[in-house]
Each structure stands twice: as structure tokens, then as C-alpha cells.
């Protein structure tokens, strides 16, 4: 029961068949029994969690509950969480205790969710494997020799192993969707501006997007309902009327619930080196969508192959600016020995940042420097426009765009550590949604020859969250990929 999706747990809580204290205790025990080999959590707090669970039970008893009241959650460690260590997976913030909470953290707390811990991640959210954390790599619950994806790998692994029914992540180039795919869970990147970035420790401000992980599309909609909203503390937060992202998910709708849905299939995906098992799983999913009434149309995204180079100019440029704040003066690590102020900055940053973060800061510094700005940064912003225009043309012919979330299923730990560009090419299908700002979800759609999960990405135009959630939901009503759980024996024996 405690490993069920949020919607089932909420029914149990509402019907008083289960209390939040019982649920929270059971999941904390499960984390204690199974969590260690995954290294998914950087902080756990049993006492604080149980205090929140008791408060949630009181709210449930008083009839003052939301659909999320009493449900345990874990937050990616890039999200400021008042009174909790918030490290970004970095030595730089190893001992940093957040003085306030991120907007999405506040919103989920206000809804009555019970925070059980903070999740491990690639350092400063820069990575696609969750191997670059200062606190050691996260491991994939389906096979401990494989990566869970990244950068929100701890959140994805924790939901996949059913240690927690919900977790938050952030997606700058695929950091929710890619680990969701590689770990076999659902991960939603909302439209840029729908969820406030307040308290999200910035990586690339024009791309960073908070979003949820859960077992089902229904659960993602429940979480997004609570996470979305206007916030004057983020100047890019959109002031829109509140939206019920669950509104299309009602039961019924007949045997062909997707009859009016046009699915766009980008021709360019065929040239992107997709693994045969991944291609077969996605083809089978598309056949399922056709049987649900949807039609498929070929669409063109001619600049798709430029999205990775554009991303790896814009994101490092913004990162080099955002991470300038870590200088050993106001917070975070300061080198123990230095000779003067300039040396203090240089040694503090050399010691505090890991190799990938340093590389991206150096790349960003270069593309913003005198004489190279026009050739790289301005050029990347122009190609970003070309890519966004391609998507707008495609959405004249279709309602959603589908394909694999990643070209392959999970890879072995260490397999791509020596070549940053091989790691970056994991992002080929995910970065475009960050460049355009549009929403996208990854849902499980099969397994490869190593029994590792495969993710299907459903992209929509700006503010199409309800549509893509409904599209995912109808697939999940007709299939059971999202209900598959990794065997816990490996986790037990690895303790």
C-alpha cells in the first residue's frame, strides 16, 4: 500500500484507512532498509518528517486537507529548504543551511506534503548521470552498475525505488525528463514561468524550470496544481489565471479517447542514432496511441541537431554569470590558505567546484568574453530563435510531438565520464523544450535488452500541460509500464 501512487494514497488518507504518520514511518523505514546503495538522499530528517505527518493528520481530521496533504515528498538539493542543508551536490555548499525556502517547496508544504529528505544530484545540476555530485554518484535502482540519469538523479531513483511517491526536480536541459526516462518514472517539465524559480539555486536562469516526479501522469498533475502559480519574487514568473491541470483526466472518454489528437513525429529523430530497443519501444507506444484514436503526422524540425550546441553556449554563459556569486565571502566554502583577495577567490573556487562545473564556467566565460560574444553567444541566441520557429511551424500540423526521451537507456557508471561531449549528446531530444520554454513529459514505455527502462517524451506547445498530461494518462490507462517496479532484492543484498 505505501508504495502506491499519490492518488491511491490520498484515498487511503481521506478514508482514514491510513494515517500520514503510518505512511511516513513506513516509507522512512523503507528508505533505511533499501536506500543506502542508491545514494539518492543527501539528508533525511525522521523527527521533522513525523512532526509534519502529525500536523497533516490533524488537517485531515479537521476536513482541511488538499489532495496532497499527508503525502511524503523529497526535494532536489538545488531547491532552498529553510532549516535544511541545501548543497547543490557541491563541496562549495557542503555545510550551507538554507535561510528560506524555494517557492515550490513552500507551495508543497502549504498543501500539507511531508518532507522526508533532500535528494542527490549532479553538482549545481550540471550533468546527465548524477555522477558529478561531491557526495558520490546516485545509482539506478534497476541495476546498480548503471546511472539513474541526471541531473535530478536522486529524485528519479527515489521515486523509481518507491522510497517516496513524489519528488521535485529542476530541468534546464532535460534534468527532470532524462532521469525519469532512465529510472522508469514520470517526470514533467512545465512551461517556463509556470513554476516560480524563487529559491532554485540558479544554473541557467533563462532555462531553469522546477517540476515534479511521480509514478503516474495523474500524480504529476496533482503536484503541478500545487507547484504552479504567480510569484512576484521571480521576475519571469507568469501572472496567469490558476489552471486545474487534472481537468482532462476524468474517467471514461470511451475506447478511443484520443480521437482528435494529432501526434507529430519529427523526421530528424531518425538520424539521431536511436538504439534499436528504444526505437522499438517507442514504435510500440505509437501503435498504442493509434489504437486509442490518435493520428500521426511527420513534422520537420530542421535545426534540431543544433539544439545541443546552442544549449552548450547559452547554459554555460548563464552559469558563468550565476556562479560568480560563489567567491568565499558571503556563504559557502572558503579556502583555508591564500595570499590576498584574488588568490582567495581563485583557490576557493578551485576547491569548491568540481571538474564539470569548472569546465562550464570556463566555456561560459569564453563565449561571453570580448571578441567572442557575437560569434558564440549572440549566434546561439539567433539559432535558438530558428529552433523555436521550427517548433511553432510543427505545431500547426500537430498537437503534441512524440519520440524517445533519450537515444539509449541508462549507461554504466563511468562510461561517459571521460568525454563531456558524449555526455552532452544524451540531451539531444530534451534540450529543445528548454530553449523554446514549452512543456514536456517523460513516461515509461518499455525496457531494453538489459531490463533497463525506456522513456517516451511527449512535448506540447506553451501551456499545453493539461493536454500532454491527458495524453500520457490515456496511455497509462491502456498499458502498465508505469506500474513496473525494480526488484528490491538487489538493493537488500547490496547493503
Amino acid at each position: 500500500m505505501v508504495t502506491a501512487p499519490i492518488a491511491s494514497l490520498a484515498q487511503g488518507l481521506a478514508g482514514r484507512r491510513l494515517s500520514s504518520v503510518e505512511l511516513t514511518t513506513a516509507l522512512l523505514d523503507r528508505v533505511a532498509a533499501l536506500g543506502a546503495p542508491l545514494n539518492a538522499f543527501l539528508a533525511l530528517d525522521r523527527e521533522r518528517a513525523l512532526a509534519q505527518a502529525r500536523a497533516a493528520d490533524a488537517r485531515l481530521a479537521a476536513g482541511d486537507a488538499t489532495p496532497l496533504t499527508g503525502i511524503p515528498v523529497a526535494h532536489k538539493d538545488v531547491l532552498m529548504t529553510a532549516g535544511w542543508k541545501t548543497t547543490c551536490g557541491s563541496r562549495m555548499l557542503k555545510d550551507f543551511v538554507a535561510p528560506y525556502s524555494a517557492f515550490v517547496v513552500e507551495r508543497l508544504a502549504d498543501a500539507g506534503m511531508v518532507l522526508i529528505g533532500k535528494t542527490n544530484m549532479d553538482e549545481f545540476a550540471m550533468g546527465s548521470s548524477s555522477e558529478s555530485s561531491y557526495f558520490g554518484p546516485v545509482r539506478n535502482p534497476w541495476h546498480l552498475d548503471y546511472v539513474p540519469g541526471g541531473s535530478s538523479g536522486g529524485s528519479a531513483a527515489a521515486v523509481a525505488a518507491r522510497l517516496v511517491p513524489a519528488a521535485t526536480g529542476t530541468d534546464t536541459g532535460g534534468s527532470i525528463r532524462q532521469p525519469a526516462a532512465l529510472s522508469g518514472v514520470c517526470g514533467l517539465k512545465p512551461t517556463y514561468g509556470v513554476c516560480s524559480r524563487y529559491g532554485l539555486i540558479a544554473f541557467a536562469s533563462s532555462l531553469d524550470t522546477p517540476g515534479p516526479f511521480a509514478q503516474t501522469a495523474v500524480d504529476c498533475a496533482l503536484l503541478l496544481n500545487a507547484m504552479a502559480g504567480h510569484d512576484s519574487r521571480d521576475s519571469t514568473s507568469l501572472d496567469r489565471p490558476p489552471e486545474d491541470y487534472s481537468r482532462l483526466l476524468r474517467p471514461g472518454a470511451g475506447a478511443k479517447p484520443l480521437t482528435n489528437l494529432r501526434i507529430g513525429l519529427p523526421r530528424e529523430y531518425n538520424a539521431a542514432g536511436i538504439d534499436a530497443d528504444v526505437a522499438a519501444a517507442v514504435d510500440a507506444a505509437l501503435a498504442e496511441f493509434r489504437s486509442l484514436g490518435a493520428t500521426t503526422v511527420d513534422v520537420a524540425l530542421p535545426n534540431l541537431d543544433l539544439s545541443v550546441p546552442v544549449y552548450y553556449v547559452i547554459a554555460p554563459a548563464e552559469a558563468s554569470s550565476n556562479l560568480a556569486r560563489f567567491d568565499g565571502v558571503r556563504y559557502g566554502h572558503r579556502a583555508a590558505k591564500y595570499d590576498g583577495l584574488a588568490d582567495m577567490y581563485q583557490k576557493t573556487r578551485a576547491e569548491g567546484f568540481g571538474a564539470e562545473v569548472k569546465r562550464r564556467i570556463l566555456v561560459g566565460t569564453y563565449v561571453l568574453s570580448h571578441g567572442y560574444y557575437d560569434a558564440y553567444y549572440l549566434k546561439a541566441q539567433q539559432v535558438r530563435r530558428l529552433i523555436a520557429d521550427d517548433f511553432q511551424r510543427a505545431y500547426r500540423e500537430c498537437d503534441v510531438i512524440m519520440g524517445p526521451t533519450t537515444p539509449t537507456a541508462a549507461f554504466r557508471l563511468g562510461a561517459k565520464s571521460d568525454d563531456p561531449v558524449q555526455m552532452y549528446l544524451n540531451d539531444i531530444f530534451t534540450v529543445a523544450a528548454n530553449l523554446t520554454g514549452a512543456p514536456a513529459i517523460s513516461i515509461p514505455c518499455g525496457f531494453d535488452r538489459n531490463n533497463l527502462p525506456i522513456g517516451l517524451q511527449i512535448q506540447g506547445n506553451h501551456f499545453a500541460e493539461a493536454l500532454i498530461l491527458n495524453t500520457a494518462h490515456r496511455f497509462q490507462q491502456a498499458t502498465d509500464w508505469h506500474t513496473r517496479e525494480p526488484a528490491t532484492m538487489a538493493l537488500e543484498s547490496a547493503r
Partner: protein
Amino acid sequence: MALSSDDVLRLAHLARIEITPAEGAEVRQKLDRIFELIGRLRAIDTHGVVPMAHAQEVTLPLREDVVTENDQHDLYQVLAPAVAHGLYLVPRVLE
């Protein structure tokens, strides 16, 4: 393009990150791979294309010019590596 050792040291200086000579060669080799990837953009014809700085075409909001922050000096200074008398301490820069 390929970076020289001097290029790497210049970047490291601009970024205020110390890179030792021992690290320099590996950093340079990995940066070269990244510049090979992003260098592809230079060949793309973008004549007349308006740069896209942001995912949403919105103007930044304005608010009344009034103080909205509370004084949280003590809360934030707890986090600093070195403070005294309410001030952040850094190495001396003037003799």
C-alpha cells in the same frame, strides 16, 4: 579552433578559478572537444534573425519603488565564512 595553454590560463584568470599546470593539459583537451561541438554554430546563416534571449516574450514587471525586504542581516551573516561587527571579512586589499 584549438585553445593554447595561455588561452586556458587567461580564461581561468577571468573566471577566478585556479588551474595548476598539472591540470592544464586535461582541461584544455576537454575544452577543445566542447568548442568543436559549439563551433558548428559559426557556420549557420543567421542574417537578420532576432536573437532570442528568453523563453517568453514578456517585459520585465515593474513595482512601486518601496522597501519590501526586512532586515535579515543576522540570519544571512550566520552563513558567512568570516564576519566581525556585522561586516563580511575579506583579505586586506589596501595597505
